[in-house]
């Protein structure tokens, strides 16, 4: 068997693009400084390993999208899962991509304005839907909503 090499050529199979989405619970509430440290660390590593994505944080809960070469993403997910800063890591969706959704972000982040009131009757809450609903149709819709929101916020340069 050929040993794995660092150099990935176009003929290698592990370059298939994979997107993985998970939800987790922070072991302790993250301060803005702790989040910044985590983002700095993530962006440095991801930039070097060709991983892109988005991190969401609300009320002590994370949702993260990771995209990149399949093996890289799976290995990173294993590392992240064992990070003591969070627990209850639950993978919500894994799918192959032809194109990255977060090509411009080694780890995109925008602060979420936490709603002060419960969602009005008849409305869904994207974050809650992702965390509590295992139906893939709901999961995909909620991810799409959060992705759209992220792009709008990122474009407005906040």
């Amino acid at each position: 068997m050929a040993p794995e090499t660092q150099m990935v050529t176009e003929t290698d199979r592990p370059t298939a693009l994979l997107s993985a989405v998970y939800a987790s619970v922070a072991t302790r509430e993250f301060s803005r400084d702790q989040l910044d440290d985590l983002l700095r660390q993530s962006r440095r590593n991801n930039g070097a390993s060709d991983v892109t994505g988005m991190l969401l944080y609300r009320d002590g809960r994370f949702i993260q999208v990771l995209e990149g070469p399949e093996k890289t993403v799976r290995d990173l997910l294993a590392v992240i899962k064992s990070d003591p800063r969070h627990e209850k890591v639950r993978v919500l969706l894994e799918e192959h991509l032809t194109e990255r959704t977060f090509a411009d972000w080694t780890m995109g982040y925008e602060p979420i304005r936490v709603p002060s009131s419960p969602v009005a009757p008849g409305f869904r809450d994207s974050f809650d839907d992702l965390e509590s609903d295992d139906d893939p149709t709901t999961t995909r819709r909620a991810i799409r909503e959060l992705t759209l929101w992220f792009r709008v916020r990122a474009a407005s340069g906040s």
Partner: protein
Amino acid sequence: MNVRATVTEHSPVIEPTWARVEADFYVGSRAGEFLGYIDGKGGGAFRAYDTFSRPVGEFDTVRDAMHAVLAATSNGSAL
């Protein structure tokens, strides 16, 4: 019988789904298709955007903004 669907001559009308992403930010979809979104600007102003994220107006209430998003879609601009 599904009380949320109205049967017309051609096809059932499927109710749109509205989801809040954060305070004053709502995304509309129907049967998995993105319809548009509403971004609250504070001070009781809600900007509505169509399925191509083009602005369709600014409104005093979320309800009015929702109607504007749906109207922009049914005008055929999304079809």
